């Protein structure tokens, strides 16, 4: 029997964690609790997705961010001793999980990509050395804690007719209020496209000379019915494309039928995100670029020469 807690940030991540949670709990029996903000938004759905209990966290004063829930969650976990706590590997989850783990003096597997039971213990896999290796860990302390990479686990099939208990946690009697205050919030435009579902992904790398040249990559992508992705320098240093399109260790993992890297050197932190592709292709002018050793098919040549020819050939 195991008690598993999930911290809910977004609907999508909560469903994925419930998918993983149900898989784990069905093997040993036990229950799943979802902890969420006081508005309880979306909670009607959670019972069908596998939650046995929902805990609403106390309201936060104006200007406080979600991390302000940490002391309340830590105090409740210290008292109720859940066996497992899962958080999404979102920016928020990646900050909150280690802080909670520190308060609970326990181990945390960051950005977990696989989980299994092994002789009564939980084992987890995670990526190390930039993606060059997979590390398998087990936990020497309780609770077992992990942040889970988005899109790694599927949401469970909802089961109608299940219900979940609801309870609220009171604010801490002698709680200290954190000093961090939000003074401004800017919503970013959300992308409608989802790279992780694309059949073809054409990734742009720093081999492109200027932002306008992305048009070439976009044209190739549209001719093959694919989506454009990129390396981290393009989204994060040059800001040519939104962060959601960054593929790799700190971005998303894709699993298309075809991945084409254009002006991408093929460093391990990027390539770890395309390992799931059926076919990997590359266009790079440096014949010694590491991507050629990790690709099925590669054009050695200048992208400004190769892409127009590729576009012509694809149009035929």
């Amino acid at each position: 029997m195991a008690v598993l807690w999930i911290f809910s940030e977004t609907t999508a991540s909560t469903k994925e964690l419930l998918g993983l949670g149900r898989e784990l709990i069905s093997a040993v029996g036990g229950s799943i609790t979802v902890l969420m903000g006081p508005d309880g938004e979306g909670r009607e759905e959670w019972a069908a997705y596998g939650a046995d209990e929902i805990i609403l966290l106390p309201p936060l004063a104006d200007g406080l961010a979600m991390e302000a829930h940490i002391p309340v969650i830590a105090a409740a976990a210290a008292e109720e001793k859940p066996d497992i706590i899962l958080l999404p590997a979102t920016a928020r989850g990646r900050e909150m999980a280690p802080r909670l783990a520190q308060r609970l003096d326990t181990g945390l597997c960051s950005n977990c990509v696989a989980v299994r039971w092994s002789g009564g213990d939980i084992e987890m896999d995670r990526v190390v050395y930039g993606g060059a290796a997979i590390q398998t860990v087990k936990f020497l302390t309780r609770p077992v804690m992990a942040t889970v990479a988005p899109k790694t686990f599927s949401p469970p099939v909802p089961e109608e007719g299940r219900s979940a208990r609801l309870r609220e946690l009171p604010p801490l009697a002698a709680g200290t209020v954190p000093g961090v205050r939000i003074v401004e919030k800017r919503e970013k435009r959300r992308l409608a496209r989802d790279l992780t579902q694309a059949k073809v992904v054409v990734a742009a790398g720093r081999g492109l000379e200027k932002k306008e040249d992305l048009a070439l990559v976009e044209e190739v992508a549209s001719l093959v019915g694919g989506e454009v992705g990129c390396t981290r320098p393009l989204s994060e240093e040059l800001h040519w494309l939104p962060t959601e399109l960054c593929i790799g260790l700190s971005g998303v993992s894709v699993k298309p039928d075809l991945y084409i890297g254009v002006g991408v050197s093929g460093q391990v932190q990027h390539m770890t995100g395309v390992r799931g592709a059926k076919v990997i292709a590359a266009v790079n002018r440096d014949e010694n670029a590491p991507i050629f050793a990790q690709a099925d098919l590669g054009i050695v040549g200048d992208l400004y020469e190769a892409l127009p020819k590729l576009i012509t050939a694809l149009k035929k």
Partner: protein
Amino acid sequence: MPHIVVCFKWVIDETYLRRAPGGGLDFSSVDYKLSDYDRNAIEEAVRIRTALGGTVTGITVGPPEAAKGVKDALSRGMDAGVFIADPAFVDLDPSQTVSLIAQAVRNHVGPFDLIICGEGSGDLYAQQVGPRLAEALGIDCVAFATQISLEGGTLTAQRRLEGVIEVVTAPLPALVTVLPEINTPRIPGVKDTLMAGKKPVRTLAKGDLGATGGPRLQTLAVRAAAMERACEKFGVEEAEVIRFVDALKKRGVLA
């Protein structure tokens, strides 16, 4: 004038890792480097000091060989180093690293205004040491900052989350972890390297600090990630590009 503490790690350069027969990792030709994103952390500390005055103290935990990393980090503009060194300080888990750094900060560094950590280390990329350290020291934490400034005892930071950018303030002392886009790290010159050798480094041995507690995680296996691919190369001439497209079609990945 602020006293800024920056945490950095000397790590295996993953580009030299090879797959060993049997699926493990071959470490025989590895080299080491200053963890990529800790260069941004150091640069940010030095940038603030250049603007406001004050001092920058760098801290690292590692085996004696990481002395090279201390020198590398000092050549990037820090004023002084604290080197927590022991042959046993390899493959620590984040909670143990935090225990050592927290003790060193409390007992050997003196009052500070800001601690800066990288977003994640080059080898583990656990993204834990920064946030855990803030809790261990009981100070406020802002993770994944893309811009920071200090004024009158207050930190202002911009941080990027999924779908939203938040600007937050926090009273000092505080801890931030920084994303690589926050700045472009300098490349030290010969003069910087020479000067680094003259800067003060305080070395703390195991006996200077208390216990760290045992590891919280146990590594059962580390295996090389597989990447078996056909590696077929094509030229850039028209006929070659057509052959490339045909090859994609033959594999059934192009409609």
